[in-house]
């Protein structure tokens, strides 16, 4: 059985704000959510900037005790609640549907983990609150949200580095399409913490300036934080209940480089394989793709690899397919990246408009792509792809179709 899969709920929170509207308007306006980090002393690092969320509108937790929750649980809750509202269904009806909950994260509640580690090392084990360890574990944030809304079952939590969110969405997509479940809650999240900031600093992967994906002068990434959540439903079921369909997810592809833990394969074989299998899964030819939302980290190696993958996949059209990365505006959301960028891809299809690749100035011959410099109208946009690549050589691609597109 292969059922069509509708997106009936979208929730998003990034440094550009909470909600689809705030994020979309600021993205198409080319605004940046990158600012000096306030959560910890970042001045001692190569950069002091990131896509930190300043004022998170934390919704009330009624069933779960608020005092013991990590910031990542709040991020996920904000995005979940917005997506839930889109579905038009009350929480008890969602719970009755017994959706699978499939989420991606790289670090879970690492802010709590940091607090535990610091206290443990400075003051000894007796002074470190053990509940911080429970909040730190990467499956606990989904469990908190499920408990809050009485969703049954156990979440599926992917930690595939920067492809975590895309793989979580892909797994949910397969589960709905195959008829295993009628509804899925999926997405990804990660919070900004010193552990990851120092980690990417140690790898010399952070830019001291602006993040410029695919630009000749690119010299690194900028980190961010946020969450993206989607509700997926069997198309016919969503239609029958009169749900507002926000988009269609039509394909998912995945692969592994088996090359190096942190460096992408310069031959791009894994990336090409993931993108190609996503298109085959969607049953569309490369020519149908009108936009690629790139992983586009702004690091020299990743962008060169991704550009060669796009050029190889699209052949002679490779240099004409519009491509952009939104990471210069919101930062790299790690486990949340694939989900949030997938959502922006779905919104691009809905709004018939392409998000810009901020800070792009100098074309790089090694990335001979058609980069979207400023947001542009795309009235005929019907199919778009979102890429995610991560540590461990993990690659994922999602293919979306416009909600008004030709799905037959």
């Amino acid at each position: 059985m292969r059922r069509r899969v509708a997106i009936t709920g979208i929730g998003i929170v990034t440094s550009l704000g909470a909600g689809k509207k705030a994020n979309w308007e600021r993205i198409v306006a080319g605004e940046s959510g990158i600012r000096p980090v306030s959560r910890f002393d970042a001045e001692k690092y190569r950069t002091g900037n990131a896509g930190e969320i300043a004022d998170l509108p934390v919704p009330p937790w009624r069933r779960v005790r608020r005092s013991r929750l990590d910031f990542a649980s709040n991020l996920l809750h904000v995005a979940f609640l917005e997506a839930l509202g889109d579905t038009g269904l009350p929480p008890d009806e969602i719970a009755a549907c017994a959706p699978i909950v499939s989420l991606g994260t790289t670090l879970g509640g690492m802010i709590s983990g940091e607090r535990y580690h610091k206290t443990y090392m400075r003051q000894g084990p007796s002074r470190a609150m053990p509940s911080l360890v429970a909040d730190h574990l990467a499956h606990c944030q989904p469990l908190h949200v499920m408990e809050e809304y009485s969703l049954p079952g156990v979440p599926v939590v992917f930690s595939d580095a920067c492809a975590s969110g895309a793989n979580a969405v892909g797994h949910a997509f397969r589960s709905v399409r195959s008829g295993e479940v009628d509804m899925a809650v999926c997405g990804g999240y990660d919070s900004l913490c010193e552990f990851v900031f120092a980690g990417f600093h140690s790898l010399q992967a952070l830019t001291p300036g602006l993040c410029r994906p695919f630009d000749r002068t690119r010299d690194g990434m900028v980190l961010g934080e946020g969450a993206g959540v989607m509700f997926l439903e069997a198309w016919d079921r969503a239609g029958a209940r009169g749900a507002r369909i926000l988009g269609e997810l039509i394909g998912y592809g995945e692969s592994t480089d088996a090359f190096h833990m942190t460096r992408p394969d310069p031959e791009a074989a894994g990336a090409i394989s993931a993108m190609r299998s996503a298109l085959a899964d969607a049953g569309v030819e490369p020519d149908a793709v009108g936009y690629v939302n790139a992983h586009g980290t702004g690091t020299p190696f990743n962008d060169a690899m991704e550009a060669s993958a796009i050029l190889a996949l699209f052949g002679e059209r490779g240099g004409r397919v519009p491509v952009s990365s939104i990471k210069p505006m919101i930062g790299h959301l790690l486990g949340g990246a694939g989900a949030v960028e997938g959502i922006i891809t779905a919104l691009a299809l809905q709004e018939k408009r392409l998000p810009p690749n901020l800070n792009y100035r100098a074309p790089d011959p090694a990335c001979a792509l058609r980069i979207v410099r400023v947001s542009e109208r795309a009235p005929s946009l019907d199919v778009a792809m979102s890429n995610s690549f991560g540590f461990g050589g993990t690659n994922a691609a999602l293919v979306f179709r416009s909600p008004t597109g030709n799905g037959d």
Partner: protein
Amino acid sequence: MSVDITGIGIVSPAGIGMDDFACAIGVPPRPAAGFRVPAFGLEEYVGNPSSFRRVADATKFTLAAISMALSDAGLDRDRRRSGREGLLVGVTHGAIDFSTRFHQGLLLEGPQGASPLHFTESVLNAPAGNAAIAFGFRGPVHTLIGEETVGGSAVRMALSLLRSGELDRCIVAGAEEWVVIVANAYDGIDRARGMGKRGSPPPAPLGEGAAALVLETASVDSRRRAASKGTIRGVVSRRLQPPGMSAAVEEAVWAVIGLAACRTEEIAHVILPTGRYRRVVEQGTVRAMGEKAGVIRWIDIAPHVGNPFGAAGLMQVAASAARHAENTGKCGLVLTCGIEGSFCALVTGSEGR
């Protein structure tokens, strides 16, 4: 469609390799100071051990377990694998030792003390990523995070990928490493939650290790004439929440027995959870089994391996397969449970042996 287990690899405090593990759990446990894996090298498990000399213990255990499972299944561990072979690795805490060392460097020396090695090898998908490099996995490779039930979640996902035809073969693994900071944290959590009080047995101490299974559909493994070590007949997972946890276990046991298309009379053994809520799980299962409960062999591997969290579920499946190897009955029931109430029930079968 049942799925065959064609290879098993295990690294545990009770022994390295299936033979040692099966022998150890078949006799009373030896008193030990802690549940640690004996020291070993990777030379006999990977083709290029020097490439992995600085990996975390969780990764090292994973590499050895997968290598053993591939060999047990008669598969060449050194060849390049097709995109139709997947790898799913379940962990709870991951490489916490490296994570702790990274924090330590950062705290003591500032950014200059932050080691890129400790950072990259502490990411949760380091065991899976390194295994993909070591054994050439180019298809789906995922790391799943969860409680002790995460091995069951990995098996469930593997069944789905195999039955849908997305994959021909899937290796599932679970891994965990012992770290004092984690052991201390769980002691604190248990004290705070009153675990081990009110007549319930104290939770098993933190263990470590890895287990790996090679799973194939019957049509694939019969084509290459692989020897089956048993089958996976069904998996269900639930979240147990008070009150009514025991009743939820009973319902889940019925559900998995139904899914596995077997009868309670065919359940020859039950592998008990290594984690928290063992008494609750036992009570619910006894009720589900009814009169049959008295003749079932109840097996507890915790006295041999402690609670190896992310590796627990698959070590339990290995224990169930070891019972099937002794021709002791048609089906086994494997139960895992986590401190936040995740519960997984899995039925193994002896068919194909």
